[in-house]
């Protein structure tokens, strides 16, 4: 069996793992199952077996790859610096190429094709918004229950793309903002908070008009050609901006890896900065006010912030500047089970992890939890008791300084 796409795990990548197994306890699915095939090392062994022609790329291989949350906690644990997230995206691309009729086809079409269309996302979001208003979401189960955990979706659905915001005085610089696919529709308040904080620091914020979805969800699902197409479109759209601010951790992590997805990708990647990272930096530079206070607030790290980008201090610093004392709820930084679309595609695993996280939050005894990523926020809302509030650190900060 030979790999067929340009994104397949390379021989160097496969060789970079020495089977030490130190990743195993960091892997949520290994923790739940104790099964090597559900561990990073086991998944690499499976990739090697297929790459070496010793095993077929069959349904069982697809299943082994599909169970991975792509949280990349294994990368934080790995002393050999194995690029596991990259390899998993490539392996899923191979599954898609070899098994175009696999049951995961629906996800690939959704996240590869439809999500890149602002009109379709807006229509679908409006439909969810109507369901929310009709009270349908609160009585449903599965995906509908998740819809209940979403923030109320504004109708008409707003978009940041094509707009620009000026600071009160002379701008100290310009930054570009990724408006994103669902962030626009579902998390416009986060966009607003980020934009206002950047304005406060003196920046002009531009959301370039011809940008599109970052392609993370497509890449995660193995829709590699779509991921590449979306990355190329964004590489063009963000041409000429020194700094690209991204306020969803999954998107910022993916865009920092654009070198794998587009010809000019490396150039974009180097200019991408996660909003938490950037705001924390502006605080250090003294461009933003610091509020004194001692309000305890739990902090939950999105995997694509903590593990994929190794950004840990930034959201804590932002909460600190908002007069809050961040309370650690999980020193190991285990995935909450959201994992983008995973919470819809693997409800069993996702719910088990969500319950563990909810128990940790209860154990920490906090009434408010901050999570700087929309997917995690949705997952936490679905699992914590109704009296626990889930918020975004930058929104908390903006609320305090506005």
């Amino acid at each position: 069996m030979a790999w067929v796409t340009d994104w397949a795990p390379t021989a160097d990548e496969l060789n970079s793992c020495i089977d030490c197994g130190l990743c195993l306890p960091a892997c949520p699915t290994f923790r739940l199952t104790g099964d090597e095939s559900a561990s990073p090392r086991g998944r690499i062994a499976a990739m090697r077996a297929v790459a070496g022609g010793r095993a077929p790329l069959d349904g069982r291989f697809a299943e082994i790859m599909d169970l991975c949350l792509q949280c990349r906690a294994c990368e934080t644990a790995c002393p050999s610096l194995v690029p596991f997230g990259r390899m998993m995206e490539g392996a899923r691309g191979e599954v898609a190429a070899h098994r175009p009729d696999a049951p995961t086809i629906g996800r690939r079409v959704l996240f590869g094709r439809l999500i890149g269309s602002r009109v379709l996302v807006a229509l679908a979001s409006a439909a969810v918004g109507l369901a929310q208003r009709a009270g349908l979401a609160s009585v449903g189960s599965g995906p509908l229950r998740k819809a209940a955990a979403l923030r109320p979706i504004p109708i008409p659905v707003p978009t940041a793309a094509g707009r620009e915001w000026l600071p009160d005085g002379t701008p100290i610089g310009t930054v570009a903002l990724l408006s994103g696919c669902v962030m626009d529709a579902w998390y416009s308040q986060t966009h607003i908070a980020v934009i206002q904080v950047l304005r406060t620091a003196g920046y002009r914020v531009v959301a370039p008009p011809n940008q599109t979805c970052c392609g993370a969800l497509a890449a995660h699902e193995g829709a590699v050609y779509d991921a590449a197409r979306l990355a190329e479109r964004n590489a063009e759209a963000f041409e000429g901006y020194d700094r690209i601010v991204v306020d969803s951790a999954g998107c910022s992590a993916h865009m920092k890896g654009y070198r794998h997805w587009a010809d000019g990708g490396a150039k974009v990647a180097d200019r991408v900065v996660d909003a938490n990272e950037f705001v924390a930096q502006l605080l250090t530079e003294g461009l933003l006010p610091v509020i004194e206070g001692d309000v305890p607030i739990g902090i939950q790290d999105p995997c694509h912030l903590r593990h994929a980008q190794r950004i840990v201090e930034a959201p804590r610093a932002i909460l600190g500047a908002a007069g809050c004392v961040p309370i650690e709820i999980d020193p190991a930084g285990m995935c909450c089970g959201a994992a983008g679309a995973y919470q819809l595609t693997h409800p069993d695993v996702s719910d088990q992890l969500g319950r563990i996280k909810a128990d940790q939050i209860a154990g920490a005894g906090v009434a408010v939890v901050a999570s700087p990523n929309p997917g995690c926020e949705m997952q936490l809302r679905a699992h914590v008791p109704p009296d626990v509030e889930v918020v975004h650190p930058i929104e908390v900060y903006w609320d305090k300084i506005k």
Partner: protein
Amino acid sequence: MDATARLIELLGVDRVRTEPIDRMVYAKDSGVTAGEPAIVVLPETTAEVAAVVRIAAAFDMPIVARGAGTGLAGGAVACPGALLVVLTRMNQIVMVDEVGRTALVGPGLINLDLSHALVGRNLHFAPDPSSQQASTIGGNAATNAGGPHCLAEGSTVAHVLGVEVVSADGEILMLGGAAPDPPGYDLRGLMVGSEGTLGIVTQLLVRLTENPPQTVTMLIAFDDINDAARTGSDIIGAGLVPAALEMMDHEMIVAIENFVSAGLPVEADAVLLAEVVGHADGVAEEAGVIRSIAVRNRATDVRVASDEDERALLWKGRKSAFGAIAQAAPDYYLNDTVVPRTRFVDVLGEIYAIADRYGIRLMNVFHAGDGNLHPLVSYDASQPGMTDIVVEAAHEMVCVAVAAGGTLSGEHGIGLEKRDLMDQVFTDVDLDAQARISQAFDPARRMNPGKVLPDGARCFDRPSS
């Protein structure tokens, strides 16, 4: 009904694996040997393990037990046709007795998870192999694992008080117990380190150790690795038993620093990581003695970890060493020889000379306190003939250590990988005595056959001529 059907009937389809790719996924541990099992099962209780063993017996299948698969000697690598019994799901902490300082745990419990669960109770599980964040306590017992802190605390056998074992014929035995000196033969001691050849451990009563009131961790840098080795020897020679005394050479320091950024001195030829524990006065005095011995041996820098975070970072670096070497080349071969501390400097020199002669890249990270060397050869197995060269060089290193009065293995076990070197350190009579033990527990030779003892270890295995 065939064996697979019987096992599925017992465990359900999710906990029995027979697909080719699943068998490949379970083919390796962390070492260099490999072997695919015929069937993989994931039992959750002692009763299930016993039933699995009886099914294997009925179908005459060899049985290999496996934990997290972090072993380095192939002890958990399947032999042909094996039923692989994966114990990771048996990871419960059944009971903690804070007063008696014991815990009853499943064999699949991850070593470090036990200590994490004890946070706030001032207790920990002392054996700390570098794999402790991933390796299971059952696996630690199987190999009688050591770790940096076994210098003062003893290896795993000193921390396992009792074991529940499923024997080769599916019976459940209790060996040892909480009493300090149980009557009869010490079969518990025999079971620890037997690498699954005498039975499958399904529960362990382990000793818990009180956290030390004070800990000082020192990082000592040297311009010449021989100075570092001599410092190690001198510290022990001065009558000190530090809690841990570790050494890393230049190449290793660079690889580790790349991963953890612990501020290791990347320009040094070698560093010693020394830890002293106890009450404040004693700790300060011991640290002072170590510092003066190091300075006398031309140490270029002595750094003391200023807080718990820095201490944790230095240990994280040390314990990531084996993984970090992959940055140099895709494969590694790791030795586990022990040499008398008095011969440390000479043997180390000879080992570097062997590496030079074979033209292979050597890194060293080891337990300087007890003379347990881990020369680590970093290489690319895809180069034709390279593995043979490395294995040959590694065997030569073992011979040098043994000739100096040392031994084969300090803490990783014998498994498959060092089995055929056993006659370097044991006479025929010695090996026969060990083989008779295995014969007594496992007359059908079903439990992890082909491990630990070389073929023909039993006198009656050999042709009579």
